[in-house]
């Protein structure tokens, strides 16, 4: 059992979960993830590690509410236990002094990219952070990200911050104004895809953190297999980070939606069993 220390809503539909996991906090590196199960009947789901504290022995993730498992997580409070919390899994993000690196993120990725931006900054890079939001009230952790970025651009469809452009324009603008050596992108599949397509013609190395369906998370099941450079890769052990220019995005879009109908069935069932009764 793993104890939850904090669970709070950051912005609508995006929550933070901090747990007591001393061993994982000692080993965690930017870009890695954990697998967890919200309760005994739950699914095993991966969440990127968004922060950790070796001294306190804690690990934090940020998640977007999509299906039953994440819905269940939002019902948990500090002091509750969850049955499965295992990690850190996956290969850590590549951290070196590259020069100038753009960190492009949206939704849960704003939290997930934070430790990567921090490590890149510590390694001596110039870090430019680009955040993409549907609406201005979906921004969180901007101070944390500001603290590890040399520059930060926030685009929301309502134009409340810097602009209201979509990611290709925002990122394109940044790439025009700076000599960028690498782009790192985390968020929904579409965001990572469009970032990769924006940088492809410019030949700028772009790293994406893939988020396919996983079951065990240690290479045993192959649920997370993706085609990268024409070869089968397991996101859980060969990734989750891959070169965005080599990923078969169409396949990934489809595979991510594999259980769309089941997710709705599951959520309806859960709501009927849990919300209507109380």
């Amino acid at each position: 059992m793993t104890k939850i220390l904090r669970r709070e809503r950051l912005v609508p539909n995006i929550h933070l979960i901090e747990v007591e996991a001393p061993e994982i906090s000692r080993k965690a590196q930017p870009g890695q993830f954990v697998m967890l199960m919200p309760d005994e009947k739950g699914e095993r789901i991966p969440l990127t590690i968004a922060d950790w504290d070796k001294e306190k022995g804690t690990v934090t993730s940020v998640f977007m509410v999509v299906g039953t498992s994440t819905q269940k997580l939002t019902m948990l409070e500090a002091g509750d236990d969850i049955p499965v919390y295992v990690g850190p899994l996956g290969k850590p993000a590549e951290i070196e002094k590259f020069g100038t690196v753009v960190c492009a993120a949206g939704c849960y990725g704003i939290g997930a990219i934070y430790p990567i931006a921090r490590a890149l900054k510590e390694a001596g890079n110039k870090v430019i952070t680009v955040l993409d939001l549907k609406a201005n009230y979906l921004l969180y952790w901007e101070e944390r990200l500001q603290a590890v970025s040399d520059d930060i651009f926030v685009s929301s469809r309502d134009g409340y911050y810097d602009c209201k452009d979509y990611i290709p324009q925002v990122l394109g603008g940044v790439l025009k104004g700076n000599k960028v050596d690498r782009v790192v992108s985390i968020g929904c599949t579409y965001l990572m895809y469009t970032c990769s397509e924006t940088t492809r013609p410019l030949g700028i190395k772009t790293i994406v953190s893939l988020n396919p369906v996983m079951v065990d998370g240690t290479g045993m099941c192959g649920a997370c297999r993706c085609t990268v450079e024409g070869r089968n890769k397991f996101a859980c052990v060969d990734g989750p980070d891959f070169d965005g220019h080599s990923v078969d995005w169409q396949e990934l879009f489809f595979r991510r939606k594999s259980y769309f109908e089941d997710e709705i069935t599951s959520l309806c069932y859960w709501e009927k069993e849990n919300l209507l009764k109380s």
Partner: protein
Amino acid sequence: MSEKIKEIPPDLKERQREGFKLEWRKELRKAIPVKERMKIPLQKMPTRDAEERNKHFQEVNKGLNADQAQAEAKRCLDCANPQCVMGCPVRIDIPAFVKLIEAGKYVESARKLKETNSLPSICGRVCPQETQCEEVCNLKKATGVGVAIGNLERFASDCEREQEEVHIPKIPPSTGRKIAVLGAGPAGLTVAGELAKKGHQVTVFEALHVAGGVLVYGIPEFRLPKAILEAEVDYLRQLGVEFKMNYVVGMTASLDDLKNEGYEAFFVGTGAGLPNFMRVPGENLIGIYSANEYLTRVNLMRAYDFPRYDTPVFLGKRAAVLGGGNVAMDSVRTAKRLGAEFSAIVYRRSRVEMPARVEEVYHAEEEGIEFHFLTTPTRFIGDENNHVKAMECLRMELGEPDSSGRRRPVPIEGSEFIMEVDLVVVAIGNSPNPLIPQSIPELKVGKWGNIEVDWDTMATNMEGVYAGGDIVRGGATVILAMGDARIAAMEMHKYLSTKKK
């Protein structure tokens, strides 16, 4: 692979001679003459009706009752030169445990089994007896139908458990030595039990949230009920074994971290958990699973009870399972149980080459599974949602024998045909799990990523580190994993006894 021993080792010969001379065994032999024994028909294992059982997950075999078990035990001739023992990879004293059943001493029989086999109730259910102990049985040579040793093994050990006669041995005072077992499959569980009984402090580290390895995520309930495995794990807890679940060695902590925490000896039993794929076009279409994923969703995550459990699984109407081993058989029978109208094995060789246990093939046929032999898929075809809707197959014929001694299947040109399917399970084998070898660069591994060991001691090239089971052999069997584990446990005990703290 370990050598098959042809000569009977002297200590075994001695053990057999002693047993054979026991007064009560002599009397049993006298009571019924050999000719009479040979007339007793094989006691058939009672099973659930095929048309009923292929709709749920309850165990197929119901187990022999006491009368049947005694009748079956009487068929054993208690030979002066029992071949069966040599057929068993862990050299169970088969005549001894069988004759204890004949004498009505079921609990003692189970204890006899446990002298050499830590998990008899499991082995009695999943061992490929027909190629091991039962194949070389003298009665089989004489009459064509050998003693059903596996069924008797299951009977005795089930009796012990059901009568709550499983006793916790007296454990010697703690040696204060800490041992880390990596992986809670049959290999790891066996090492843990053996070393706990010697008074060592054993901790099992397991990546998943339930102990058992393949026994829990792979082999379905209808063949090995989870309750049996749980009883075995409980027993180990009572012996003082500590389980650290959700703990991936190599990620959560390294071997060196564990050394720093005071662990002095290590057993790596992390299995062959990496699924192989066909590498043909379209394999990543939706509705195509590795057997590991398919069985894990259903068994470990209980997708058969969706949406009461949250993990879903595709319920195909037309299921094809690629492969001919136990894993394929378990998958195809699972698909049937989950409602597939057509559930078929597609295997590139022919029936005789299938490595699955004979009983599973037989049960599968009874349950309405179809078999397409000498057939291999060449490509998968998807619908507009990228869900698999068909597969193109090629017919094969058998050519010259290959390195495994089996005749190599060769494609027949122009024999392509289309098979309509909406669920495909790839069960063509697993490779050793690379996490541990990757995290310990000094550890010597072979060409296939399997850990290399000295077969006499199961020691790896690193001092204090031993290994066994599928991580060493590639996909093998429960009994071989357990046999490795017993050797390793003995050697680890020796190692700790000579090593200074």
